[in-house]
């Protein structure tokens, strides 16, 4: 799993690339935890280049989401499509986090 980090005014955009599964989900948690330790608390997670997600990935999103909330920050999900969107749908996960069709739309929401 790879990450592309883009710092914007309203939030840090984290593009997750590849697979978010039982092996890689801890990498995601570690990455976000590191950024939160450095003072970041607003995130937009860009799923545009994510090919696969399992419940381990969803759980990692939940865990980081909880910590973001405890810091008074926000976490928005954007650009979810294909197989990842299907997993969000069948797990009922889509209702937990605000989801946006594009990163731009999420950034707009974060600025409000």
């Amino acid at each position: 799993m790879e990450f592309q980090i883009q710092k914007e005014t309203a939030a840090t955009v984290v593009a997750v690339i590849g697979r978010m599964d039982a092996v890689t989900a801890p990498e995601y948690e570690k990455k976000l935890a590191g950024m939160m330790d450095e003072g970041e608390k607003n995130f937009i997670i860009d799923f545009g280049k994510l090919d696969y997600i399992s419940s381990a990935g969803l759980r990692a999103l939940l865990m980081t989401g909880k910590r973001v909330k405890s810091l008074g920050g926000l976490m928005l999900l954007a650009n979810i499509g294909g197989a990842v969107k299907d997993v969000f749908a069948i797990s009922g996960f889509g209702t937990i986090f605000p989801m946006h069709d594009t990163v731009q739309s999420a950034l707009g929401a974060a600025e409000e």
Partner: protein
Amino acid sequence: MIQIKHLSKKFGALEVLRDVSITVRKGEVISIIGPSGTGKSTFLRCINLLDRPSGGSIVINGVDILDPKADVPAIRRKMNMVFQSFNLYQHLSVMDNLTLGPVKLLQTGRQEAEKKALELLKLVGLAEKADSFPDELSGGQKQRVAIARCLAMEPSIILFDEPTSALDPTMVSEVLAVIRRLARDGMTMLIVTHEMKFARDVSSRVLYMDEGVIYEEGPPEQIFDNPQKERTKIFINRVRSFNYRIASPDYDLYAMNAEIELFCEKQILPLKSRQSLQLLVEEVLQICADTLRSTAIELAITHSEKTGEIKLLVESGGAEENILESAALPDELGLTIIRNLTRSIAYKRDGGQNRLTLILKEQ
């Protein structure tokens, strides 16, 4: 008509047929199906004494053909065989191929034999090829000549050993049409074939052979629509399987996924099915993490080429436990995904093993 009891055949240490028993009645059309190398052709060759059985008895019309005093050529005349590779005499015309046996062995007059041969060539649609040589014929035509030659000996039983296996697909139907006609006319036939639709249509009874035995037999409706035994089901539904053993919670997910991917590629499964299957396996194994600390898990993925059904079988030892019910995960996410990916989930304790069967929803 034919009574076979406890027939066996060994080639050295290799036991090809084991305790095969069957009675064939006059007018029956029996198809013999099963995987390659399971003794089907050897069974026919033993009946025709092309291979000498190692044990058992074969009685045809009251004659024990394994009796050393039995008149083997006379038996073969009554029970002719059609081979996969036609076995025509290349140096003889079609007409001579058909008349050689009747003239030499049945002492039929040349004229009469030729008249009969022409009738038979008409029956198989090849009257105009009487003067041709085998080399001038297509594979389908050669096989029809072989059938006509077989009929020229006026057999009461015909044994067909994969009569269409050596033919181009375009020529299969012309040969099968001739065999169908013989069936309608009441000829007693035993047919080793891989043509399942044909076997279903033409047979009064179907034998499924596996590992040298008649594993299941019954009317075509039973064997093809509702096979009773496991290996018959696997064969009829053309089930391909992939097995993987996981012995530790620290298993290599990516090595396993690569093998699942390879299996899916071989089965030409669509991308969505592959993704769903990988997700299903990962979710099940996540839930099995505790189980994996104490016992190994055997995974089997099966795909039916006939129905398209994809099944995941999860088998583990240890105490009786349905892992999906006793899962100690912090949330229901994995279970929710599993339930949504599958159309059926069944647990069974069998032979000291926990067996979980999950059938993937159609994609």
